[in-house]
C-alpha cells in the first residue's frame, strides 16, 4: 500500500426492497495517494455520492456494501473496512448542504468541540478552546463570538466553514467532500475551494472531492475519476483528461461544462437521461446516449483498462474520440 492512503477494490452498494435488488454502485475501484486530491465527477444518480459515503461507513441502513476497502490512515498497518470502525479515525466528510448538515439545536462551537472531546478526551473547556482555534483556522472572523451562535444565525459560507472545522476536529488524514460548494454562491464557492486547497497543502491531507461540476474539480484535483451509472469509466491526471478525454462520456461532460450555474444538476449537453439503476443497459451503460456508438458496444465487457501513461478508460473504441480531436 506504499504511498496510498486508501485502496478501494470492486466496491458494490446495493439496496433490496420488495424482493428486488438495485446496485447503484457496481464495481468501483480506486486508490488515493498521500496528499493527493482525487476528483470524482458524474451526474446525479451516478452513484458517486453513495461510493463516497460507503468509504466512511455512512450508508443508509437499508443499503448493503461489498468489496475490499483498505485504509492506511496512520503510519501503522493498513486496516480493512468495517462499517463503524472508521468514524472519526482519520477520515472526515463534509456535505453539500451546510444548513442540514449542522445540528440545528446545538451551538456551532459545541458541535466542533464534540470531535476533540470524543477523541482526545479533552474536558469541556479545553475542547471549547480547541473549537475556537479550529474556527479561526478555517477563517471564521471573531470565532469566540460565533462559537456561541446557532447554525441558523450564520451565513451559508460561514456554515460551510463550520462544517469544515467540524471535519478537521478529528485531525483527518483523508477528507471526503460531497459537493461542498454546490449549494453556495459562486464567490463563496471560490473562497471555500481556496480554503480546502490551502488546508490540504498545509496539513498534508488527502482529499476525495465529488462533484458534477468539472470546473470545480479542475481547480482542486490532481486526478479525476469519471463515474457513470455506478461505474468508473475513465481515470487519469486532471490536465490530461481535460486535454484529451478517452471516454465519450467524459467528452460529453466537458462540452456541457459552460453551464456554470451551480444548481443545474442535469447536464444539458448530453441527450437523454442517465439510465435507471433498476434497469441498466447491457454492455457499455453509456451506449444508448453515445454519439460514437458501435455495434459491439452493447455486448462487449467494458472493464476499466489501464494504459502505460497512468490513465485508464472503459471505452472499447477510444480511438474514435481521438480521431475526431486530431
Amino acid at each position: 500500500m506504499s504511498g496510498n492512503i486508501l485502496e478501494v477494490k470492486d466496491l458494490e452498494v446495493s439496496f433490496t426492497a420488495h424482493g428486488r435488488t438495485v446496485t447503484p454502485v457496481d464495481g468501483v475501484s480506486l486508490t488515493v495517494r498521500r496528499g493527493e486530491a482525487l476528483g470524482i465527477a458524474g451526474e446525479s444518480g451516478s452513484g458517486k455520492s453513495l461510493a463516497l459515503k460507503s468509504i466512511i461507513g455512512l450508508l443508509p441502513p437499508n443499503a448493503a456494501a461489498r468489496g475490499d476497502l483498505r485504509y492506511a490512515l496512520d503510519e501503522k498497518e493498513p486496516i480493512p473496512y468495517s462499517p463503524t470502525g472508521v468514524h472519526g479515525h482519520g477520515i472526515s466528510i463534509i456535505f453539500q448542504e451546510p444548513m442540514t448538515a449542522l445540528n440545528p439545536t446545538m451551538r456551532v462551537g459545541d458541535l466542533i468541540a464534540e470531535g476533540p472531546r470524543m477523541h482526545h478526551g479533552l474536558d469541556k473547556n479545553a475542547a471549547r478552546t480547541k473549537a475556537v482555534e479550529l474556527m479561526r483556522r478555517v477563517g471564521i472572523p471573531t470565532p469566540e463570538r460565533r462559537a456561541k451562535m446557532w447554525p441558523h444565525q450564520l451565513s451559508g459560507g460561514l456554515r460551510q466553514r463550520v462544517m469544515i472545522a467540524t471535519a478537521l476536529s478529528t485531525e483527518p488524514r483523508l477528507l471526503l467532500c460531497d459537493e461542498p460548494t454546490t449549494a453556495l454562491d459562486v464567490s463563496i464557492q471560490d473562497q471555500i475551494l481556496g480554503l480546502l486547497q490551502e488546508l490540504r497543502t498545509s496539513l498534508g491531507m488527502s482529499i476525495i472531492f465529488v462533484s458534477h461540476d468539472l470546473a470545480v474539480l479542475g481547480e482542486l484535483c490532481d486526478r479525476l475519476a469519471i463515474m457513470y451509472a455506478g461505474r468508473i469509466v475513465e481515470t487519469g491526471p486532471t490536465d490530461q483528461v481535460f486535454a484529451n478525454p478517452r471516454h465519450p462520456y467524459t467528452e460529453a461532460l466537458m462540452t456541457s461544462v459552460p453551464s456554470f450555474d451551480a444548481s443545474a444538476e442535469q447536464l444539458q449537453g448530453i441527450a437523454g437521461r442517465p439510465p435507471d439503476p433498476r434497469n441498466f443497459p447491457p454492455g457499455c451503460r453509456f451506449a444508448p446516449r453515445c454519439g460514437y456508438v458501435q455495434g459491439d458496444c452493447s455486448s462487449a465487457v467494458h472493464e476499466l483498462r489501464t494504459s502505460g501513461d497512468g490513465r485508464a478508460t472503459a471505452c472499447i473504441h477510444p480511438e474514435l474520440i481521438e480521431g475526431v480531436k486530431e
Partner: protein
Amino acid sequence: MTLPPTSSLDAVPEVIEPGAALTEPGIWKKMPKKVYVGAGIVALYILIAIFAPLLAPLDPLEINPVNKLASPSAEHWLGTDELGRDVFSRLLYAARVDIPIGFLGALLPAIVGTILGALAGFFGRWVDTAIMRTADVVQAFPAYILVIVLVFALGQGAGSIIIAFTVLAWVIYARIIRSEVLRVKDLDYIHAARVAGLSRLRILRVHVFPNVINQTLVYLPNDIVFATLGLAAFSFLGLGIPPPTAEWGAMIADGQPFIRTNWWLATVPGLVIVGLGLGLSLVGEGLEERLRA
C-alpha cells in the same frame, strides 16, 4: 398519486414503489394480509349485529328478580345481571346499538367534512374562509368535552351522539380534503378540463373526488374506533344511550360494582369492544400502508 420514476437513488433509495389509487385495477388483490384479517373480524361483528335476534337465546330486556347476578350456566352462558337479565343476549343485542352508531358517527363526519373541505378548496374566497374559520373554533375546544356539552344541550340518545360526533370530527376530513383539492386543482389535467368547458361541479365530481377519496378511506377505520369507544364511554358515564337498552359501555358500568364476585359482567363487554377495535385498526393500518406508500 404517482411519482416520477426515480433516477437518483442517492436521494431516495427507499422509494421503489409509488403509492397506489383505489381506482387502480387489481389493487384489492395487493392489499396487505392484515386488511383481510381485520375486515374478517369486522364482518363477523356486523353479522352478529344483523342476526342478533336469531342468535340470542333470550330476550335482552326481560327482567327476572328471582335470578339476579347468576353465575354462567347452560341457560345463561354469561350469567345474569343485577336485574336478572341474560348477559349473553344483551351482549349480542348491544352490537345492534354500538355498531350502527359507531359507523354512522364516523361516516357522517367523513361525508360532511369531505364535502365542506372540497367546497372550501375548490371555490376558495369567502366559502373557504367561512368553512375554515368554523373549523378553527371547533378545534379550539377539547374534543370530547364539546361532545358532552352538545349531548347535554340536545338531550340524551343516539341521534344527539351522532350529531355531536359530526360537529366534532368533520374538521379533520375537511382539512385533509381541502389541501388535497388544492394540490390536485393545479395539476394540468384540471386546467385541461376547464378549457374543455366542463362545469365546476362536474370537474369536482369526475376529476377531484376520485383522487381525494383515498385520504378519507385511510382515516375512516380509525374514526370508527374513536366513535365506538366514544359511544361506549358516554354510555359508561350515563350520558349516552339511556337504559334499559343494551350497550357495551353501559354494561361495563352496570357490572363494575360487582367485580369482586361477578367479574365477567364488566370484563367481557370490554373484550368485545377491544376485538372490534383491533379489527378496525388492522384495516386502517393496512389501508394506510397500501394507499400512502
